[in-house]
């Protein structure tokens, strides 16, 4: 084991390979507050990559309901038990803006738990059986009176739920990559996308076992495992639609609810993804305590119990929700870029506009300015320009009721 720095945990941790960050990291932000679970993302992915035989159980992108849902069933509860993380302890008194923005995680990661338990493998994990993969949303939207303990046996939550959108996190320290005894899994230096080499894979399912998010999936037909490829041809700009510009993945660009923004985590503070994640800390990693430094970030839902959310997204939850409820001028502008373009936005600029609205939210003053936010592509060319207030178009009366 070597020691690598995991900024989600605010400390160094054990990992089988040296720290080697990509030039820029594939990343995305999902605003849970806006998701309606229409599954358009899920179908966009399915119809692009997993419609083939032997992939019937595969949903590289899925949307599940919390607290009951899980694809595969109870994946998170089972993995949390393996790292003995009922406590989820964090030291939050001291923080470093860059090294430990959320504080320091005091529990074990999946790698440290395996080494403590002398498992003689790189990470703790389990292989979900076929029946656990088979019905991605079963037992989620079932009326309380019909609910059995067949799919989940959590305590009853009758007043809240939220949707969680999941795909491969293209982690900085992937559990799957660590687990593979043949190094058939690699993380690309150019964009941090994690891929399974279909030639080298021998279907050992160590990745299925040791990915805490359960996103590598075994395909019985080909006897090897497959996973989300982050639509890498699109990210590389191979799709003719964006004329060579890096393009967002199928699941991102299909999002009807406009909850998703994809880009690259880099050092540019004016990159909308980097700004929201690292500078504003509005978007948080999913189960950072697993220790893989996942790269899909979530704006946590306002209405769910904070203790549950802290377990899921770490100690940054309270600050993130406060910020989301009363957004600052810049935050509101950057959040307006969600789903405005298919080409990936690398930088934003805000042109100030007049104040249009003012109110008080939970005792805090909120002012809205009709700023214009501009998104630029990799080449510095303008991709999108939008305002905080969406323009209203009133139809000419002579066209009423006409088609």
């Amino acid at each position, binding site marked *: 084991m070597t020691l690598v720095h995991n900024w989600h945990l605010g400390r160094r941790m054990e990992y089988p390979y040296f720290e080697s960050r990509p030039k820029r990291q594939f990343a995305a932000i999902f605003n849970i507050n806006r998701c309606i679970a229409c599954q358009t993302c899920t179908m966009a992915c399915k119809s692009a990559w997993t419609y083939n035989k032997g992939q*019937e159980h595969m949903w590289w992108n899925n949307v599940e309901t919390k607290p009951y849902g899980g694809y595969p069933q109870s994946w998170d509860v089972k993995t949390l038990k393996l790292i003995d993380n009922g406590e989820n302890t964090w030291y939050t008194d001291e923080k470093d803006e860059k090294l430990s923005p959320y504080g320091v995680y005091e529990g074990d990661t999946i790698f440290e738990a395996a080494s403590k338990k002398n498992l*003689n*493998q790189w990470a703790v994990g389990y292989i979900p059986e*076929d029946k656990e993969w088979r019905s991605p949303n079963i037992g989620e939207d079932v009326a309380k009176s019909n609910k059995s303990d067949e799919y989940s046996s959590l305590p009853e939550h009758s007043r809240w739920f939220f949707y969680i959108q999941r795909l491969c996190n293209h982690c900085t320290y992937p559990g799957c990559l660590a687990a593979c*005894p*043949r190094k058939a899994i690699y993380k690309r230096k150019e964009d941090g996308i994690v891929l399974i080499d279909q030639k080298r894979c021998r*279907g050992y399912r*160590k990745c299925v076992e040791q990915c805490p998010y359960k996103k590598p999936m075994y395909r019985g037909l080909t006897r090897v495992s497959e996973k989300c490829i982050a639509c890498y041809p699109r990210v590389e700009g191979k799709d003719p639609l964006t004329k060579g510009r890096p393009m967002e993945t199928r699941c991102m660009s299909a999002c009807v609810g406009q909850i998703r923004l994809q880009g690259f985590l880099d050092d540019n503070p004016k990159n909308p993804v980097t700004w929201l994640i690292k500078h504003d800390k509005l978007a948080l990693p999913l189960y950072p305590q697993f220790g893989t430094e996942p790269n899909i970030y979530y704006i946590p839902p306002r209405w769910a119990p904070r203790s549950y959310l802290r377990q899921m997204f770490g100690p940054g939850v309270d600050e993130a929700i406060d910020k989301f409820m009363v957004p600052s001028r810049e935050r509101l502008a950057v959040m307006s870029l969600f789903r405005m373009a298919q080409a990936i936005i690398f930088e934003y600029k805000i042109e100030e506009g007049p104040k249009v609205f003012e109110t008080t939210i939970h005792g805090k003053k909120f002012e809205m300015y009709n700023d214009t936010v501009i998104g630029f592509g990799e080449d510095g060319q303008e991709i999108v320009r939008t305002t905080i207030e969406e323009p209203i178009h009133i139809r000419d009366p002579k066209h009423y009721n006409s088609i």
Partner: protein
Amino acid sequence: MNKGFSLFKVFSIPLLGAVFLSATLFAAEEPAPGVKGMNDEEFTPTKEVLEVKYVQMDKPYHMDVESLKGAFNDAKPVNITLQKQDKAFPNGGGSVTSAEVKAVHDGITVYFQITWKDPTRNARTIAVQEFRDAVALMFPLGAVEITSAEHFSPRMGDREKPTNLWHWKADWEADLLVKGELEDVEAQYPNMHDDFNFNPYSAYYHRELITSVEVLSGGRAANNLLSQPGRGRTVEDLNAEGFGTLTTQDHQDVNGCSHYEDGVWTVIMYRSLITQDPHDVQLVPGGNAFFNMAIWNGGEQDRNGQKNISTQWHPATLEKVAWQ
């Protein structure tokens, strides 16, 4: 800024050299992470020699265990002790403790028969939680004399010390028996819904989808032998030079057959004594060889390094043919 950079340029080469040197020294003392070192005993081959007997035999019409077993009547068995793989992550195995090996040749083909006890027959790997029973023979590549002084790792070889492996798989044997020579997912899930085959006119209506199956089956498109239908064999011919380096050969030369009864696997692997493939071990009548073996028990979720292994090389001698 510029000055600092030029200073870096001046000192970077000796500096990097020192870093690499210390890294090399470190590597010489410590094995790779997750890999434990081996002791001298493991580098010494066992004393018991497997005699590969010369037998005159007519090649049977069906190359199955029933037809071939007569050839092994006079072959002397060697018992091989197996243990858990405990050196490279992930460790595992330990459920199969011994196996019996017999070998014969007819001047053209060499046959190895391996028998071991396994209470469960696992011959399918379609469901995610299912793993196959398997057995592998390993041979050092090239003319080698293995002694405790001349290290040649009995665990998949080492860098510059490659091995040739013959890997028999229970599910490959099952694949051979079905149409198209690859058990389809319907074998595991008979009533599954299938977008491609539920429509009797699907070949007409979904021609583009049907023809894209190969392309969108990653393993097949990448020519991964495990994913290919119609392999026509039950044994995979591979090379390795250390943990994690196992690689399928471009040219497959080994075949085999098996029989499972009363909790006992009998597997016969056969290949021409001599092949034209430079990556294959060449077995010469009248000469010597070394081999080692591993067994995977699918019922115990054995796969990869989770296996039952013999920790030493075993010597073998090939009897001269009658006309030599």
